[in-house]
């Protein structure tokens, strides 16, 4: 065997990432009679992030019942396998040899797989401390929620005794639960926003159980400690500073899609989501390459990712049947304080986005904002949202206006006032 020998195969559909999105799609395609649907995951177990979310609340929108993360993952694994999809774990897609030809590393060797359709379902992660440019020393005890959950739920590792949580969107509250399970105290939850960004009921329930202070309008200015973390320094918007003693800090939220494969294929990214720019049918700019799940909208809940998977089955089947690759070419962009919109490519005469609406995010609270959709100075839609929108939570914009857009005009822009 030479150092570079690869076995070369072809499949109909290669799905990269066996999270809710990839699994739900594979199940649909296999059930629809596609012969060779192969799903790869680099982790030793399939299931994606829900594997290590050991709390309830999964499955509401896609399965119409509520279960724990691990049960939810098992459900989707079983469904995909039962339908006839091939699931392979501990296998990493490392790059591209040609369009729709993926290089793979696994314990059985190097492979090269060419597929009629490649679906990227590689999920998203939280930006770590370094990416957020938080200064200070580099002590142990600095985590993201993903690492915390895996440490506690999958590996039963000891985490510190006293933790500060940075971020107050829903995943920060998951971090509280995980820390509780690990026997650690929450010294404070810190957000640079004026309020927390989860559902009031969840906030109250968590506060009742764990009784931690929520510090609003504050940023982390420094981490201190040699060896182990000793404190987190904060600065309040009004200039007050404080140091909170702790041996653990969890950076939560602040999402970035795992876009490595998308980007290394030269697929254009959307400047807002940082995931591949994709249309209402999950098509990227690269013929035959689709994208689904959190890679497109970092971060939505798991059931939304699974629904993406289901909805993408139609377009993938049409592609397999030979439909020409004509993704919606018209970009949809947002302007600050909006963060992203998904989908972010449209074809005015094409299908509406999933569930007839666009999903958006904001970077700060907006009270009943007025949204304007415009193209080349022409207003396509203008309307007030019925409620306050919060950062870290989705809100929606009806998609009726797309028929009025000019397919050959400039980008469509969504602004607030």
């Amino acid at each position, binding site marked *: 065997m030479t150092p*570079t020998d690869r076995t070369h195969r072809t499949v109909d559909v290669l799905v990269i990432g066996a999270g809710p999105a990839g699994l739900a799609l594979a199940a649909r395609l296999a059930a629809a009679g596609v012969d060779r649907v192969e799903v790869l995951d680099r982790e030793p177990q399939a299931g994606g992030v829900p594997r290590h979310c050991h709390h309830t609340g999964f499955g509401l929108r896609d399965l119409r019942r509520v279960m724990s993360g691990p049960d939810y993952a098992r459900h989707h694994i079983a469904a995909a396998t039962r339908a006839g999809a091939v699931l392979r774990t*501990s296998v990493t897609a490392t790059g591209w040899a040609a369009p729709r030809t993926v290089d793979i590393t696994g*314990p*059985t060797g190097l492979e090269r797989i060419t597929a009629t359709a490649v679906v990227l379902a590689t999920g998203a992660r939280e930006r770590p401390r370094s990416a957020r440019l938080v*200064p200070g020393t580099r002590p142990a005890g600095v985590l993201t929620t993903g*690492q915390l959950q*895996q*440490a506690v739920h999958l*590996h039963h*590792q000891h985490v510190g005794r006293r933790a500060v949580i940075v971020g107050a969107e829903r995943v920060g509250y998951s971090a509280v639960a995980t820390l509780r399970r690990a026997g650690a105290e929450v010294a404070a939850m810190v957000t640079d926003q004026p309020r927390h960004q989860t559902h009031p009921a969840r906030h109250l329930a968590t506060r009742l159980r764990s009784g931690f202070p929520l510090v609003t309008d504050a940023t982390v200015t420094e981490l201190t400690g040699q060896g182990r973390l000793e404190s987190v320094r904060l600065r309040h918007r009004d200039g007050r500073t404080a140091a909170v003693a702790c041996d653990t800090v969890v950076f939560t939220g602040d999402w970035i899609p795992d876009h490595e494969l998308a980007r290394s294929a030269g697929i254009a990214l959307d400047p807002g989501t940082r995931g591949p720019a994709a249309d209402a049918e999950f098509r990227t700019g690269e013929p035959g390459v689709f994208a689904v799940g959190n890679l497109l909208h970092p971060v939505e809940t798991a059931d939304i990712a699974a629904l993406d998977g289901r909805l993408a089955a139609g377009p993938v089947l049409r592609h397999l049947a030979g439909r020409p690759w004509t993704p919606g070419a018209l970009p949809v962009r947002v302007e600050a304080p909006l963060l992203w919109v998904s989908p972010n490519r449209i074809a005015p005469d094409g299908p509406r986005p999933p569930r007839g609406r666009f999903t958006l995010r904001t970077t700060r609270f907006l009270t009943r904002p007025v949204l304007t959709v415009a193209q080349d100075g022409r207003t396509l839609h203008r309307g007030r949202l019925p409620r306050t929108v919060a950062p870290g939570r989705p809100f929606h914009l009806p998609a009726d206006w797309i028929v009025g857009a000019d397919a050959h005009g400039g980008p469509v822009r969504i602004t607030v006032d």
Partner: protein
Amino acid sequence: MTVTTTGDLPGEVYDVAIIGAGVVGTAIARELARHRLRIALVEASDDVGNGTSKANTAILHTGFDATPGTLEARLVREGYQRLTAYAAETGIPLEPLGALLVAWDAEQLAALPSLAEKAVRNGYDETSILDADAVYAREPHLGPGALGALEVPGESIICPWTTTLAYATQAVRAGVALHLNCPAGAITTGEDHHEIATPRGVLRTRHLVNAAGLYSDEINRRLGHGEFTVTPRRGQLIVFDKFARGLVDHILLPVPTALGKGVLVAPTVYGNVMLGPTAEDLDDKTATGSSADGLASLREKGARIMPELLAEEVTAVYAGLRAATEHGDYQIHADPGRRYVAVGGIRSTGLTASMAIAAHVAELLTECGLDPGPEREIEPVRMPTIGEAFPRPYQRADLIAADPAYGTVVCHCERVTRGEIRDALTATVPPGSLEGLRRRTRALGGRCQGFFCGAAVRAQFDAATAAQDRTEARR
């Protein structure tokens, strides 16, 4: 082969003891190990290369811009040759990219010819002066306004961690006793040998080498010397995501000013791009933290050099402390009466000069009465490939066929396999911490900083450490 991390030190009297297992101390240990000597290398922390040597800009300098005639100039030039050859032999990641000293104003442009002349006086005559067009042809993503550059084709990027580890591994395999977690305290110098107090008992040695980096002045004073005082000069750096690697293909240096070498943009051998360092004189030798001001000033400078770089994600931020002194040169002094050599003030070029410093120190020790005896061949070492210039294990069908652990990726961002982590954990000089494991394998060093693999890597580390503890308990 001995590496100890706990317990009493052996009672023997060593021929040579070296304090400090940075890139300099380990290079000296390796150099001396080419003779039949009883050598101890003592290090205060739990790993080799844990001081300044782990946090630099990782450039192998030609020495083109050194001050001609200084010891530093000679040792950097010699060290460059030696380490280039050693890297090829051992597999230390090294990429000869070449540097461009970019002139951003007329004054800097006017300084280029004299820099080229200075290079010649330093024995380096391969520089050339490029006009703006030639600069942009080589580096199309450079920010607007560059007027020209001095090209220094020999400047290279190297892996500082593998360098230190290769020296230490080879030294230990050749018989050097490496004692970690062993800070040297009070020193009593007798007629025949030194007695050095450590928390692990007394270390006895006939000859003593002080390679304690930032603390070399303090050790020096314990020997009755006061030639220099170390003032830590902090350098903060920002490491950008591997996606930035396509933006830059040379080491981009500023034209040096009175304030030092200035802020550079350079690829790393791991495929990232770094921006830095700052230069801040401090008085705290432990102040290796980054600061908001430091990071802001780097971003401001980076925005001028390469605006697109700033749009990329940041993978890591770190800071190192250079051992600056009141002198413009290395502070390497021998005291034959005390059988002592001080290797201090190894400022901002010590990685490059390490092998030449070691050879120089070996000579000084002979002048101090050490009889090294005949030279012998020592076993060559081959280091794991953690650089991107050669195929890594996850890309090698032959390795994976022989051992599937090399096909099992654990750290996804850096594509580090179970087999590589296992090898590092059972190596001659194993890591004492996850940090040390990161420097040996890159595991945990990537863009997610442990989001995906942190817990899995730690599990493998904990299991190996527990297994080692069991074996030690049985002994």
